[in-house]
């Protein structure tokens, strides 16, 4: 029990956008991890309830948009006892500073976690320049 910390409860963050959404319903900001190495930028996002066909990833002009819809729960014949969380769309945008190779973008969705790999364009990868002694 002592080998790992306990997970803390966290509220889902409702997204705040200056523009009014045209679709009704709640919009949440997914939690993400973003890391970078020499080859690529990798993004992990928690989007529970989003199925692969309802996920949209868009990259244009260095702006990456992730949006995912959650299917409405079928609650026919059921009555609420406790509601501690709500469901809705997930939406988040990022501005990328690197040039991304659009053709090699790879996205995987498993157990409600999106793993998006954004490979950098070849020329953006640092190249070691050998200096010859003259």
């Amino acid at each position, binding site marked *: 029990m002592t080998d790992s910390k306990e997970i803390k409860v966290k509220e889902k963050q409702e997204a705040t956008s200056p523009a009014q959404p045209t679709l009704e319903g709640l919009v949440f900001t997914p939690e993400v991890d973003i890391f970078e190495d020499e080859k690529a930028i990798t993004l992990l996002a928690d*989007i529970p309830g989003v199925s692969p066909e309802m996920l949209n990833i868009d990259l244009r002009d260095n702006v990456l948009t992730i949006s995912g819809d959650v299917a409405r729960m079928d609650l026919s014949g059921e009555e609420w006892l406790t509601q*501690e969380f709500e469901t809705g769309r997930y939406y988040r945008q990022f501005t990328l500073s690197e040039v991304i190779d659009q053709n090699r973008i790879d996205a995987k969705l498993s157990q409600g976690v999106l793993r998006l790999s954004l490979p950098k364009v070849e020329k953006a990868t640092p190249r070691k320049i050998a200096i010859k002694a003259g």
Partner: protein
Amino acid sequence: MIYRRFVGFPGLENRNPFSEIENMRRQVERLYQGFLSPYARPAAGVFPLVNLTESKEHYALRAELPGVRSEDLDIQATANTLTLAGERKIPEEKQSAKYHRRERESGRFSRVITLPGEINPDKVEASLVNGVLTVVVPKAEASKPRQITVR
């Protein structure tokens, strides 16, 4: 109490007329807190947050557990409680990875949910789809509603 004073004459006994207004402001504020954001403070404050519904036949419990594999999840049922325990693991990335953001949390969790009625612990069914856990708990015969015919 506030109503009585409102309806009656504004208190002559009130030395500070603003204290009443202050009091009212606080009450309204409290009302708003509960009214506008009923989910602001989770009932239990324990991960994971759960939604609980019931039908005539069963209780249904839903929780968002992204990235938790079914083998890392332990669900136990007794006569009227359900225990959700497990661990959310976030695999280590390569050493060379430089983090820009790190918002996702990993760790252990354990939560006991007491259901309002008796359940049939042998027939509990759980599924984990797209990171959403759904546990369907059949009610025990004794706690099902019964139609009573009037003769």
